[in-house]
């Protein structure tokens, strides 16, 4: 009871500190200015987020973290999503921090975390080798063992979010015993990073590893622990991304409601037209279904008694709804704004663009529905 009150208080404070970065007034000038050029976000802001302690949010207090749960992470992600913050908090800090903190050799964590948590070095988890996939095991990247415990990595990783700003990649690779995780500095020989622009003005990276030689210390997780840890960490990213979509659609909806209340046509505010009222009601239902599903997913993720498949299914449930709902809400937001909504100068389009990116990231709705169905037999109860 007490710890849940503590956590509610921590979440309240987190939301407040997020407001410092996402001004409630909703000025998106900063967001707009960072689009369509690399690294796609503001390094100074990145370090400010680090200074707020956000990067260590999920780490245990013993590792300098705040020891907060997934519910707290989701709350923060929701607030940043609301402001379309382009800094890759989850992909560039939370996710890699969790993986490094869990390194097989505690010394590695101690050595690597400070630069990550201070924002000095940006990391990214590079696991994906195909579009529309969330399967960590689906890795053709090879870690060919070398004498002394190191390896030679060859392969290709896709869709690394905001890769233009990344200093080091956490790369999954296949070795004899299974999947392991390696730390690959961007500047290492044999590493080539190509970036492409995303529809929201951010970027995505394709990482080519052409015989990258790494020492034993680069192996962060061996096959014994890697798969379960990677899957669980990725599920937290799934939930956090769903939460970012929630904040995003919530805000897009609020902007649209304001427009409906003030824009007049045929002598009346357009929000008094019943067809738009009912459509708005339907959007509200979608948003609240998403909020409920995300809340449930975070709760289950924070409950150690919940078995892994049920936790993963809840994450998929949340992301499926959030992805679909965010696309629906932002599409409708553009539609309800009419012609002005289709201009790049109006902010509402920024929400649609970001929804396109985040709904696809870590699995879109279709993928998560299939995943939920596949996990389903394991979670069926008598209900």
């Amino acid at each position, binding site marked *: 009871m007490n710890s849940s009150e503590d956590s509610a208080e921590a979440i309240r404070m987190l939301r407040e500190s997020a407001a410092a970065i996402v001004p409630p007034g909703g000025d998106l000038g900063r967001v707009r200015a960072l689009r369509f050029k690399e690294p796609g976000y503001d390094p100074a802001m990145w370090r400010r987020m680090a200074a707020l302690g956000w990067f260590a949010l999920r780490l245990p207090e013993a590792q300098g973290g705040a020891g907060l749960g997934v519910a707290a992470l989701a709350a923060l992600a929701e607030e940043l999503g609301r402001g379309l913050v382009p800094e890759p908090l989850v992909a560039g800090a939370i996710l890699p921090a969790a993986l490094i903190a869990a390194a097989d050799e505690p010394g590695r964590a101690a050595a690597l975390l400070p630069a990550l948590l201070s924002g000095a070095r940006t990391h990214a988890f590079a696991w994906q080798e195909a579009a529309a996939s969330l399967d960590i095991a689906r890795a053709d990247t090879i870690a060919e063992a070398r004498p002394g415990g190191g390896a030679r990595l060859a392969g290709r990783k896709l869709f690394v979010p905001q890769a233009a700003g990344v200093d080091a990649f956490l790369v999954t690779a296949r070795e004899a015993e299974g999947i392991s995780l390696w730390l690959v500095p961007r500047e290492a020989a044999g590493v080539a990073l190509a970036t492409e622009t995303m529809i929201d003005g951010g970027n995505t990276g394709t990482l080519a590893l052409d015989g990258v030689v790494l020492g034993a210390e680069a192996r962060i997780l061996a096959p014994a622990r890697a798969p379960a840890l990677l899957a669980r960490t990725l599920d937290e990213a799934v939930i956090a991304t769903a939460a970012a979509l929630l904040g995003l659609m919530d805000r897009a909806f609020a902007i649209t409601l304001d427009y409906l209340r003030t824009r007049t046509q045929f002598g009346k505010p357009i929000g008094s037209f019943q067809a738009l009222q009912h459509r708005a009601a339907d959007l509200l239902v979608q948003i609240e279904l998403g909020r409920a599903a995300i809340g449930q997913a975070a709760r289950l993720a924070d409950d150690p008694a919940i078995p892994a498949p049920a936790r993963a299914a809840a994450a998929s449930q949340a992301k499926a709804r959030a992805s679909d709902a965010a696309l629906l809400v932002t599409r409708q937001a553009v539609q309800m704004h009419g012609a002005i909504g289709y201009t790049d100068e109006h902010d509402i389009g920024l929400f649609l663009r970001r929804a396109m990116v985040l709904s696809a990231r870590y699995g879109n709705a279709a993928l998560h529905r299939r995943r*939920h*169905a596949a996990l389903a037999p394991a979670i069926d109860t008598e209900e």
Partner: protein
Amino acid sequence: MSGAAAFGHDPTDYNAMPEAAFRQVVRRFLAENYPPALRHPQKRLHFRDSRPWYMILARKGWLAPGWPREHGGLGLSAGRQIALIEEYERHGCARSNDMGIVMIGPLLIRYGTPEQRARFLPAILSGEHIWCQGYSEPDAGSDLAALRTHAMREGDHYIVNGQKIWTTLGNDANWMFCLVRTDRQAKKQDGISFLLIDMTAPGVRVRPIVNLDMHDEFCEVFFDNVRVPAANLVGEPNKGWAMAKALLGFERIFLGSPKQSAYALERLGLLAERMGLAEDAAFQDRYAQLRLDLADLRALYERFAEQLRQGQELGPEVSMLKIWQSELFQRITETMLEIGGENAALAGPMEGDRDLNISGLFINARPTSIYGGTNEIQRTILAKNVLKLPG
């Protein structure tokens, strides 16, 4: 346990018990006492059929879980009441003629005179009085301001003339609580009073209406110079609407209960097996979507239930549940039509599977978006009262 007071008292303080333990008590009680033939009824039962269950609850002292103890209730908290109803739903219990329990009883407890309480509450608890609700009229469905049934004061009686419609199980009831117009000059909801009418009185006529499910669940009730003692007026004259509205309590959450959709989805899965589609990728795609729609409904329902457990009141937001649940239920049954082929057009169950009555479920799903305030009304409530859209 006999004679005039055919109802019992259960002294256990269930509010003090952990919820899980309470649910265990309920499950055991149902397993031992609920009439097996009444499980999962496909239609709303008439009192002649559900009476055994009503009387079992009466004898157990569980008939009125929400009433205070001093009036013969169990005094359960909102959270425990939800748990109780969820257990009933899980067991597939029939809904009995509960208008006396959930509507008029609480209203009398709050607004009635001591005499009214003494007369009516025990009669509800003993199964002597079966109540129905007389709100809707032919031209006043969603719009109660258009109410026309008229009650004119004449000495110590009211003379009632007019007509009610969509009176649920009106043909089972011997009493009706009724909104009547007592002031024709007053505007809109003013001038409406709350009157208790003995349906066996001269001038009351009940006509059952058969619905698309071929079930006489609803009635028209006609009043032709019906004399009603003025003592049967509840609260002040012309203030009936406010009282009736205050009664729309936490029960509104049950319009959004996942029960119907969950049952339908399970039937859909069974039908898919019967049709050889269980492994069909296109079907699985549809099924996965519906399953998540239901899972999200459960999550949202749980959020509202938690509000109630915290002692909060439900706001107009609860309309969300009703919209989503009713339309999900409908979509599931539409999918059954789609995969059932000709089986879906049979009037009864499928050959070889008496539990698979596709058309019955499809037809049953239709009114869920109409009754309890049409979904159009619910959407307008969300737009105006929650989203604060103008006009």
